[in-house]
């Protein structure tokens, strides 16, 4: 049980860090990468909560599709936030 709580703590803190970095980052490509990192931390949380069905959809959408879409969109604007 203690391992579950430790994993929860680690993933929770990691997601908070990545979210903060994504919000404050001016380089949009880096921000997209941080956002993917936050999604991976959330995926760990879903796995710990035994929500495997959600995890399978979430990891493909949030790490793959969402990051890909963001990079496509950044390529059509400018890389740095003014």
């Amino acid at each position, binding site marked *: 049980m203690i391992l579950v709580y430790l994993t929860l703590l680690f993933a*929770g*803190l990691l997601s*908070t*860090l990545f979210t*903060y970095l994504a919000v*404050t980052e001016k380089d949009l490509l880096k921000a997209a990468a941080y956002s993917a990192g936050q999604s991976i931390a959330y995926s760990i949380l879903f796995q710990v909560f035994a929500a*495997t*069905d959600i*995890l*399978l*959809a979430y990891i*493909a*959408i949030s790490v*793959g*599709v969402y990051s*890909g*879409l963001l990079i*496509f*969109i950044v390529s*059509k604007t400018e890389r740095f936030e003014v």
Partner: protein
Amino acid sequence: MGRRLLGLVFVYSLALALALVVYATGSLQPPHEIKRLGVFYVEETFFGNMTAMSPEAVTAIVWDYRGLDTVYETAVFFLAVVAGLAVFRVSKTPPLKRGVGLTEISRTSTKIVAALIVVVSASIALHGHLTPGGGFQGGSTLAIAPLLVIPIFSYYALLARRLTPGLLVTLRGLALTAIGLVALLPVFKGLEVVTNIRFYPAYILGQLVSGSLLLYNSSEYIAVASGFAAVFLYLSFEEEFHEEERGEDHE
């Protein structure tokens, strides 16, 4: 940089305070008993009288017990993709050129990874009625393959293999029609819409297919993957091509 670090410390203090409040109220403890609704689904999905003949309770709920919710969800996703495609208003594809793509290392690794993605996604979708996963999960995983291929090999690699947005949108339409047909077919035999086990066989050649669940999952798999792939292809076309197309539209 100092300001950013200060912000991070503030965010962590806030998170810690929130965690302490949640812990103090005792909300962290998981419940010891399953709710009655949960017990119903766990007991009925495979063994009970109201069975969906699927050991995977989530798929049984998504496509059988609460099938109507999924119909609306699929409709929302369908309209979102239609709206996305309507924004581009592209009727043609760019003329075929030889794309440059990336280095040999990334090309080779992408070939291996893309093949693995296809296999894993098919496994997620087609075993959706047996293990965690399903059509949407499998389809969104399969959509990662074109997403990888486009930047690594350039989108000409897909267009040269006739994988055009037109074909993908048609595939998507066909798959959604198949979902509609699977839901409607029982009506012709005097049963309710979205009937499962009373109309479709639970076993085919000794293999558990859970009635309509396998059909729904495989159709949704194709619909989701082709929808996403079409959007990625449209997004990857150069801005000049989009402008050209829009210019022709105005004339």
